[in-house]
């Protein structure tokens, strides 16, 4: 089951968890991820907001929609290469993938379920009793194993087959335009969106004006340090074609809007991080080159991977048998 880290990737933070991965644990986590049993009225699953077709982001809405159509305040991030992320959420509120799942499950506007009640529901289910037994050899389902299984599935979501990766592995070459875009990227973006994961996972301000709907203070919400106001976790730039809209509040739908934002940065903005303090200058040709490079970070095989999709044979075994 061991995952081979590509030579151009650093060592994952969740090395221990990856070493403990088995297909039974990942199957269990995948079932939980797609199962609305995790929400109070069985209408919302993790995949309601994190769709495999969108690289596990949510594209219909700028900010996420949860139970009873309640509207969240942030854009649901894409989920992949999580094994390399030190802190989760736009503001880093979550320190471990296991514990992250508690937030959506119990959030009154997301899945609105209590962990206690969820455990009762899972224990009643013959499907889950069997899946937990197979994955962990336990007869009594625990929240620890449920959370660890969700982690196992999410850690298995690895996107490392983009054209960029093939070029790095010597199996493909950039076009002249992509190469030009790559050079621009390295000069202007790589300080924060650091290769090969395309994030340094730090908290930064990229010059966006505070969102007017929520006036989201970002990292400050967690640390209560004024210097952290309006800082957000640098998102990865992989799979951008599938993950729009962009930014923590989903304010941009297209990549050229993003680039226009960067070239129009107001350097009088006191919150802006030092990497961008002298602004970004790009001609329209350079913008096209940069976008051509960003598109080489799309990993279609990740989006198409059937192993990541709704586990019909696990969750709907009876229907499967009727076919």
């Amino acid at each position, binding site marked *: 089951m061991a995952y081979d880290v590509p030579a151009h990737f650093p060592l994952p933070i969740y090395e221990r*968890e990856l070493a403990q991965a088995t297909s039974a644990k990942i199957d269990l986590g995948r079932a939980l991820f797609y199962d609305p049993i995790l929400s109070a009225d069985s209408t919302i699953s993790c995949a309601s907001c994190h769709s495999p077709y969108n690289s596990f982001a949510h594209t219909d809405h700028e900010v996420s929609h949860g139970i009873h159509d309640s509207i969240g305040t942030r854009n649901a991030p894409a989920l992949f290469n999580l094994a390399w992320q030190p802190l989760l959420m736009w503001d880093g*509120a*979550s*320190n*471990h*993938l*296991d*514990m*992250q799942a*508690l*937030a959506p*499950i*119990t*959030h009154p506007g997301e899945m609105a379920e209590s*962990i*206690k009640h969820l*455990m009762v529901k899972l224990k009643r289910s013959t499907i889950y009793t069997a899946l937990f037994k197979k994955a962990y050899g336990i007869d009594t389902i*625990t*929240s*620890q*194993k449920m*959370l*660890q299984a969700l*982690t196992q599935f999410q850690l298995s979501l690895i996107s490392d087959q983009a054209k960029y990766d093939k070029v790095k592995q010597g199996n493909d070459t950039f076009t002249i335009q992509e190469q030009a875009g790559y050079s621009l990227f390295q000069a202007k973006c790589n300080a924060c969106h650091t290769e090969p994961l395309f994030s340094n996972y730090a908290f930064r301000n990229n010059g966006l004006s505070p969102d007017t709907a929520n006036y989201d203070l970002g990292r400050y919400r*967690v*640390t*209560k340090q004024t210097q952290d106001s309006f800082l957000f976790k640098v998102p990865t730039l992989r799979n951008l074609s599938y993950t729009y809209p962009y930014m923590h509040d989903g304010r941009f739908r297209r990549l050229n809007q993003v680039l226009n934002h960067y070239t129009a940065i107001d350097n009088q903005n006191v919150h802006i991080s030092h990497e961008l303090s002298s602004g970004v200058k790009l001609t329209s040709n350079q913008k096209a080159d940069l976008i051509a490079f960003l598109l080489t970070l799309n990993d279609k095989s990740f989006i198409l991977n059937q192993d990541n999709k709704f586990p019909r044979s696990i969750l709907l075994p009876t229907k499967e048998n009727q076919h």
Partner: protein
Amino acid sequence: MRTAIIIVITFLSIIQSIAQTSQNKNTHSLKLLPVYKGEPSEPDSTYEKKYHIEKLRFYLSDLIILNEQDSIVYTHQAKNILIDIAKPESLLILFQDSLLVSKKYKMQFGIGVDSTTHARGAMEGDLDPVNDMYWTWQSGYINIKLEGNITHNANKEQFEYHIGGYTGNRNAYRKIRLPYNGNLFIHLDQLLSQMLGKQQHIMSPGKDATDFADIFARCMSHTF
């Protein structure tokens, strides 16, 4: 004469060994004793017809016993113990091995969950999030939960403290070292008198929470 000395010596050593066994070969324990102005406190009681404690739960962690030289003579196996004054069985911590104890021994423990444990991911037993001692909107164990109300004439005023935080200067884990005599008193009157009226709702990590943690630690003692 010689035999007499031998008899006396044997006799003394027998007495000594009897004394030793009765004094030392005990299974020891730590008894938590919530008290209000020296009176033992019952779960769900009202003090001075005014203060009502609905809930007091906290983690007691990393319990060890140290000898005169500060060497560890006992390490309690369960790393994090959830104490709940509503559950009398949680107020008696039985040591898993018997040990020799002298009056000069000390106990050391933490209140809360240390930052290393915080970063370990999902846990079971007393650290299971089903125990309602974990924040969900942000990672972190709630080290101490104290909830209740104060009656003013006919009105009831709530107080609610959820104390936690594990990073940097927001770390609310507190280490306590006290002489060991088997008892740990929690002086609820001192706690309430220092908190109520000033700050009655603390629900997230920060300065208020670390101040509470300091006060809570000072309200613990091995004597009345």
